């Protein structure tokens, strides 16, 4: 048996393209006669457009058109809905303004500079109305969406009766995905009902579907290219109004149009993690057994859409607790619609839950790690099902050992190092391990190369690399002869890259199609090659691009087999999805984060010294790219914990720090060495590879590990992210602080 390719730290198959500048992202494409667009965005936060004057803009050199609700081509799909229904922002449908920065017009010119300049010449008059952007002030408008009903098991608010209780409010500010690549699109109507798009998307097929619905043209007339995506973290999970605006402009001027938005516009046009306020209340017996948890969350949404996510999800099943009730409400504000941001709601919820557990542990005088183990859920208490696999306890153990948990002095503010306060904190995270439906085509050429095609996306985790490894293991073809192609809507269906499910979903289809291909080759050999006549597909050995008889006496290479039969290629397509196992088991990935921090005693500056993150994500297909995904999630978590906060000036409903200089994403010097470990044990049920998801759990829970470490270092509990120095300034006056 040859060493399997999966589980190896294989270099990325697209690495060379990425280090040479050869990887083409949407904005790098240059169709002939391409025109450039720039947006004119609302300067008010609520009201209506009174007038738009485009005279000056249209007179500027090189300007082709200015498109707004006054002259945009009709979007047939809008008619299916009424204005004012919660259908999202229907760009250019009417003159309503719902939020600051909402696009009101798109200017097209023959150079980028000319488009940008002309956009500054468009004059817009508004009828302004009172706007609301402050969640705290809008709590009276909180409501519940039907997707997110109240949950309870056992007794409601049972925590109140417990001998030891903890109850507190936790807030997370608005955070912005801010991938490095700016959003935008290139749209080209090659005929009145044929559209080509170069898009930044996590799913070419879902773009195709949205466009089909809106423009009512046949699916095959819409081609979406998106082979490389410069990060997304959730923001490219839907088609945004800016893309529809560009498509409309392209329709009007009948030339390819490219729009790339500005960094400022990334804060208002492509979603964000909604700011939220969560109250967690929990009770336990004196020896640390949880008796009740109540989790109430409020988060913001836009006026025209109810955005919901899994904020209270983790609370329902993470701990073995008989009484749990949750509530999740939305406050609509004059803001654009949020969208899932890495770890999505679970990252938000885990900050509250994992901080609260830590707080409770100090009240109970039980080690926080011990308290978690004490309340470990062996089976899923929400669904009353066994977990398909759960190695959380092993993850706890690995993490504790690697960070040196046992050598920490449990008392807050008890440890110092080089004049710095030292703290250790930990937390856990979890996210559903999903498997969707996907189709993959496999094309084996007579030169022995294998090409796999599926309309999957890759926003950075290394999808193609993992798929090549999976295919190599099944077929016995060497990885350098296998190509996995993605990001084209003409390829067979794959869902969006989201929810940490790509390896599970598309990888399963790769595995299935490769098995189908082998069967095809076997049947070919059995029917055409005398030496194989007596055998069956199951008995044949598949190795090094050859078919070998069970007695190892006869071999034939794929090349020879195809050439003999004068076949230029063999093509097989297979669709794959999970089955009944999802009804029998609860499937989740788990992560554990440990952080060691230094806090400067006079300034309150927090520096993370060391991170140990451990994942129970099933079998790891590529240990190199998986580690990168983990450290990436951790870096995102550092931002969430310490620096990231989009600040609104509520007087205007406008962001004040909408750029990379003022909205602080972590830079290299903000990140410490990070040790990543994988339990790396197969999940027996989820899919052929035994792999669970990784992308979300890398971040989920991380912020709590930092805030718990900061409490351990200082005795100060910060419940409002991010943990900026000002929140620790009373550090000096709390010399003797304890829980």
């Amino acid at each position, binding site marked *: 048996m040859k060493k399997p390719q999966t589980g190896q730290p294989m270099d990325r198959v697209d690495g060379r393209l990425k280090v040479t500048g050869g990887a083409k992202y949407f904005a790098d494409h240059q169709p002939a006669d391409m025109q450039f667009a720039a947006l004119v965005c609302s300067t008010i936060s609520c009201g209506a457009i009174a007038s738009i004057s485009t005279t000056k803009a249209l007179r500027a050199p090189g300007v082709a058109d200015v498109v707004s609700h006054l002259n945009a081509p009709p979007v047939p799909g809008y008619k299916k809905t009424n204005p004012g229904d919660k259908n999202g922002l229907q760009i250019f449908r009417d003159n309503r303004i719902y939020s600051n920065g909402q696009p009101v017009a798109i200017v097209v010119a023959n150079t980028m500079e000319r488009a940008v300049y002309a956009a500054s010449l468009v004059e817009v008059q508004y009828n302004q109305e009172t706007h609301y952007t402050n969640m705290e002030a809008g709590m009276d408008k909180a409501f519940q969406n039907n997707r997110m009903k109240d949950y309870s098991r056992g007794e409601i608010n049972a925590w109140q009766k417990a001998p030891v209780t903890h109850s507190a409010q936790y807030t997370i500010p608005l955070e912005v995905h801010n991938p*490095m690549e700016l959003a935008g699109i290139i749209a080209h109507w090659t005929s009145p009902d044929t559209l080509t798009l170069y898009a930044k998307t996590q799913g070419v097929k879902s773009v195709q579907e949205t466009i089909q619905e809106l423009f009512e043209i046949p699916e095959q007339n819409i081609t979406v290219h998106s082979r490389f995506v410069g990060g*997304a973290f959730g923001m490219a999970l839907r088609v945004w109004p800016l893309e529809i605006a560009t498509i409309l402009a392209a329709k009007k001027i009948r030339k390819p149009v490219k729009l790339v938005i*500005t960094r400022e516009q990334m804060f208002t046009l492509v979603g964000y993690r909604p700011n939220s306020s969560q109250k967690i209340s929990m009770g336990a017996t004196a020896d640390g057994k949880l008796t009740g948890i109540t989790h109430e969350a409020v988060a913001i949404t836009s006026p025209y859409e109810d955005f919901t996510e899994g904020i209270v999800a983790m609370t329902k099943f993470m701990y073995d607790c008989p009484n749990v009730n949750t509530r999740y409400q939305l406050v609509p504000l004059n803001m654009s619609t949020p969208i899932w941001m890495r770890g999505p709601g679970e990252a938000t919820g885990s900050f509250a839950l994992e901080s609260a557990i830590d707080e409770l542990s100090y009240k109970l005088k039980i080690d926080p790690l011990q308290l978690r183990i004490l309340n470990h859920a062996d089976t899923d208490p929400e669904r009353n099902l066994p977990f398909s696999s759960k190695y959380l306890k092993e993850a706890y153990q690995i993490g504790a050992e690697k960070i040196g948990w046992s050598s920490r002095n449990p008392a807050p503010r008890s440890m110092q190092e080089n004049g710095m306060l030292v703290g250790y904190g930990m937390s856990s995270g979890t996210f559903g391990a999903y498997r969707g439906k996907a189709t993959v085509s496999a094309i084996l050429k007579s030169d022995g190369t294998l090409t796999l095609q599926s309309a999957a996306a890759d926003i950075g985790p290394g999808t193609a690399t993992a798929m090549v490894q999976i295919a190599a293991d099944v077929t016995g073809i060497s990885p350098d002869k296998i190509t996995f192609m993605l990001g084209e809507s003409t390829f067979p269906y794959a869902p969006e890259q989201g929810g940490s499910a790509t390896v599970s979903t598309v990888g399963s289809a790769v595995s299935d199609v490769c098995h189908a291909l082998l069967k095809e080759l076997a049947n070919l050999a059995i029917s055409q090659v005398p030496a194989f006549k007596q055998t069956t597909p199951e008995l044949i050995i598949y190795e090094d691009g050859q078919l070998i008889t069970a007695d190892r006496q006869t071999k034939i290479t794929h090349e020879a087999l195809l050439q003999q039969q004068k076949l230029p290629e063999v093509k097989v397509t297979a669709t794959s999805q999970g089955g009944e196992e999802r009804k029998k088991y609860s499937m989740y990935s788990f992560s554990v984060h440990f952080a060691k921090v230094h806090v400067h005693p006079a300034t309150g500056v927090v520096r993370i010294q060391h991170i140990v993150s451990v994942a129970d994500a099933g079998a790891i297909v590529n240990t190199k790219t998986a580690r*990168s995904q983990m450290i990436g999630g951790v870096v995102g978590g550092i931002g969430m914990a310490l620096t990231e906060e989009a600040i609104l000036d509520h007087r205007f409903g406008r962001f004040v720090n909408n750029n990379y200089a003022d909205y602080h994403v972590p830079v290299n*010097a903000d990140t410490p060495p990070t040790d990543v470990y994988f339990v790396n044990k197969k999940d027996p049920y989820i899919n052929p590879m035994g792999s669970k998801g990784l992308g979300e759990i890398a971040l989920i829970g991380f912020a709590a590990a930092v805030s718990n470490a900061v409490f351990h270092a200082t005795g100060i509990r910060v419940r409002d992210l991010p943990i900026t120095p000002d929140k620790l300034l009373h550090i000096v006056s709390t010399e003797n602080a304890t829980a």
Partner: protein
Amino acid sequence: MPQENKPSSVPPKKDKQEARRDFLKQSSAVMALALAPPLVLKAAQHDEAIAAVFEKMPVNLEINGKKMQLSVEPRVTLLDLLREQLALTGTKKGCDHGQCGACTVHVNGQRINSCLTLAVMQEGKKITTIEGLSNGDQLHPVQEAFIRHDGFQCGYCTPGQIMSAVACLHEGHAGSPEQIREFMSGNICRCGAYDNIVNAIMDVKNGGQTA
């Protein structure tokens, strides 16, 4: 016009005489403007050709070893010239404000943010972009190290990181992981590949392959 400065359409290097004639042609348009501003302005609004001449300036650059005579609007940044007119799209735009490093290129061997400089300011300078870093098929050691250490995920910040890393090594700012972290902090990686980037640079440093 976006496409007109494509390398293929770059005129062969003209002799001094010709260059001066071009300059005179352009200056006479400027002169005409001075003499009859309202008229020319009006013409410019309707006549793209006049507007184009009026808006452009000649600039000579050596990009990835190739000498180029270009004609660009003074407001065009070096980044937009590379990307939109020369089809050198390896250099990326992440902010356009000098805040992210995605657009890092070398000008006379020094790393700069190409979004923060106008193309016409680089007259006579040697510019190296990610496309010009490797020696034919032979990757630069830093490029190889980035692949080995997986110094990226989405790859969007990568051209800028690599150009910065090469300069960081040349500057002698890659003495330790801590020093690398400081001197590479002008290049944001939202995918968070920092640990791997540091390891890649340390690897090249320790291999002595800073060429």
